[in-house]
């Protein structure tokens, strides 16, 4: 029927995922109305600590963490309906950063590392990955080093939620290999963090200088290589899920305008030049939604296999391209209003521009897919 390497056609949805979707939908709608979103745009942390505390209390930070560390062990696929709903309502919290970090630790950490940190992350301690030392998500090397004496040197760029993180998982070279190391925020001097001005004002990130931080051998994740690979793919999948939710929201904003704005005596949604591209937004979002839940179905707790890698990369490529289209057309279809800061359409375009690069842009993933599917 199709390429044997694209033949995995699993798409299932568990009762647990259904329940998470239902409660996440109403939670995000109630806690993240447009007034709340707008109110946080210029705030320091970018999120409401009370909302974050409530998400922790609901057990959401433990969805994909093993029971022995206080989680509910439902698998990373069960976070997808939640992350998608967060994207739908532009609800920003350190949830995504922390979830990717807890996955990295769960997949690559030692028993001691996991026992020390995973229960705290279930209870709301923020953790984040520090991967980039240049603008290239596709980079296979890093300039950050961990010396033989376990001293770190290097600056990491665009570390999500870095200002509120208690724990960083840092990519560095050590004895000729790439390793992930745990660095506590408490060990960093205040001037190590420099906040960045982001194009998406609902998001927060900073550059972090790790020069001179002294660690010990037990800061290194023993299974760094496979944890790094998996967390990049899981990062791509969670970004794709959030982008899919945001595409649906951008679509709602466009449809609301097209069904209320009258020009030349007609509702503008009756013009096919606007109607048809809006249908294209819907179709792009629908394809993304199909692909993120396909990936959610096959990404398990074990190291990601080739099918899972293909699924995560396809989901990311589709979801952020679809959001970019929806964000771009969303501005244009609002006419003069779309050119203003006041119009909500800008929120989705800015998000699209930020999100396309998170965990690799569409072209990056297609390049990897070509090697997976065409060689």
């Amino acid at each position, binding site marked *: 029927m*199709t390429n044997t390497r694209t033949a995995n056609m699993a798409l299932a949805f568990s009762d647990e995922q259904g329940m998470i979707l239902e409660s996440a939908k109403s939670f995000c709608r109630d806690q993240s109305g447009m007034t709340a979103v707008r109110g946080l745009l210029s705030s320091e942390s970018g999120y409401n600590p009370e909302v974050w505390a409530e998400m922790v209390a609901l057990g959401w930070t433990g969805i994909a963490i093993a029971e022995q560390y206080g989680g509910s062990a439902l698998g990373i696929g069960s976070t997808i309906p939640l992350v998608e709903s967060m994207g739908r309502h532009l609800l920003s919290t350190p949830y995504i950063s922390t979830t990717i970090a807890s996955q990295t630790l769960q997949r690559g950490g030692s028993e001691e590392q996991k026992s020390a940190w995973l229960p705290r992350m279930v209870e709301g301690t923020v953790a984040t990955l520090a991967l980039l030392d240049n603008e290239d998500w596709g980079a296979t090397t890093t300039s950050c080093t961990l010396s033989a004496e376990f001293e770190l040197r290097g600056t990491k760029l665009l570390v999500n939620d870095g200002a509120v993180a208690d724990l960083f998982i840092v990519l560095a070279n050590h004895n000729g290999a790439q390793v992930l190391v745990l660095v506590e925020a408490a060990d960093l001097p205040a001037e190590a963090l420099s906040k960045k001005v982001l194009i998406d004002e609902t998001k927060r990130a900073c550059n972090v200088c790790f020069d001179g931080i002294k660690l010990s051998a037990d800061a290194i994740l023993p299974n760094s290589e496979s944890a790094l690979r998996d967390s990049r793919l899981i990062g791509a999948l969670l970004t794709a899920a959030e982008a899919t939710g945001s595409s649906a929201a951008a679509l709602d904003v466009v449809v609301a305008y097209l069904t209320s704005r009258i020009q030349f005596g007609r509702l503008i949604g009756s013009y096919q030049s606007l109607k*048809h591209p809006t249908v294209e937004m819907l179709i792009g979002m629908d394809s993304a939604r*199909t692909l993120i839940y396909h990936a959610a179905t096959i990404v398990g707790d074990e190291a990601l296999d080739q099918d899972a890698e293909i699924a995560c990369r396809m989901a990311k490529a589709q979801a952020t391209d679809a959001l970019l289209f929806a964000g771009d057309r969303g501005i244009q279809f609002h006419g003069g209003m779309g050119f203003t800061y006041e119009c909500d359409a800008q929120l989705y375009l800015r998000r699209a521009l930020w999100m396309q690069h998170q965990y690799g842009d569409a072209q990056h993933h*297609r390049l990897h897919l070509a090697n997976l599917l065409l060689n």
Partner: protein
Amino acid sequence: MTTNTHSPSAAQAPELKEFRADVAAWLADNRPADPGFLLPQTFMEVGSEQVLDFLREWQHKVWSAGYLGMAWPEKYGGRGMAPLYQSIADQEMKRLRVPICFNVIGLGWAGPLIMDIGTDYEKDKYLKGILNAEDIWCQGFSEPNHGSDLGSIQTRAQRDGDNYVINGSKIWTTMGNYAKYMILLARTDAQVERRYNGLSFFLAPMHTDGVTTTPIKKLTGEYGFTETFFTDARIPATSLMGDEGQGWGIAMKTLQYERGAEAGAAGGISILSIVMNDLLKMAQDVEREGQPLLKDPVTRDNLVKFLIEEKALYLTDKRIAIPALCADYPNSLPLSGKLRSTEFFRRMRQYALTMQGAQSSLYVGDEDTLDGGFWQRAYMNNFSTTIGGGTSQVQANIVGEHVLGLPKD
């Protein structure tokens, strides 16, 4: 469009595996030899008696072997089995690329419609002939000047004693020159011009005085459609399906079958399946500067884009089966299905020609064409799917208006 809603676990059951192997073995043993003339890629290219006879014999053979109409009741020529068996048989026919079961308007649209809302008289009279290919069916909806706008139908059907007298013309009648019956939409009440409730639905006999057909030559140079003229053609009043004035509703139901949104089709493949694997194979075979085209980075990126789209398309039915994931726009996937799949295939087949380089500027009849011009035909004939059954632009209006709630023009 194919629908495949069974679970993979059910399809793994031993008796089904065995059934699948039986179908495959039968098809391998019985597939006809290359007839030496071009076979149609879809049921819309049956353009000569030679092709017609060939396909009729093949469909009859498939039916006789028990692999067509498997889920239809036995008394109507079916086998009374679970639809899953037909779906497996169809998958094997598709996979092994045997010739199509060409009587599609009967098998896929008129048949399920008659099964659903037909009288016992209609079921007894029509269903078996559809399966065994004795009775070929055609469709008379579109009219000259009113392609996708069925509300504007002008063909008149006037009651006169035990007959209706038909006057008018239809266009794009697939196999109109070979069909015994037509599903015909005509206006029985002229008082309601341009309105839907003046329309009625007929199962009309084509071998009737006053019915004539003119073959239409297609952009590919092939035949397969006719224009059909009715001049005081008297058909029995028993040809009326339902009541006078119900034509619009019955036609809409028929379109649901045509667009693959409703189950009930007799089965068989109606078109040759052309998938991404065929493009990948071509990219491997075609060379540029001594290297397979498959190594070219731009080509690779384009192929991956198509593969992503293909994957999302093939997963659609699985997602439709999960209502929680379709709650926002419940009808989105079913209503956009034709638009998404036909436009995907149009662009994919167009790219297949681009990949061939200057070779794709040759055409059927030139000895140097790739696969006898298979891809040239495949691309150009694909427009029948983006135009027929409601153009992509009409489909986009339907999705915009019925799924997103956008205002009509």
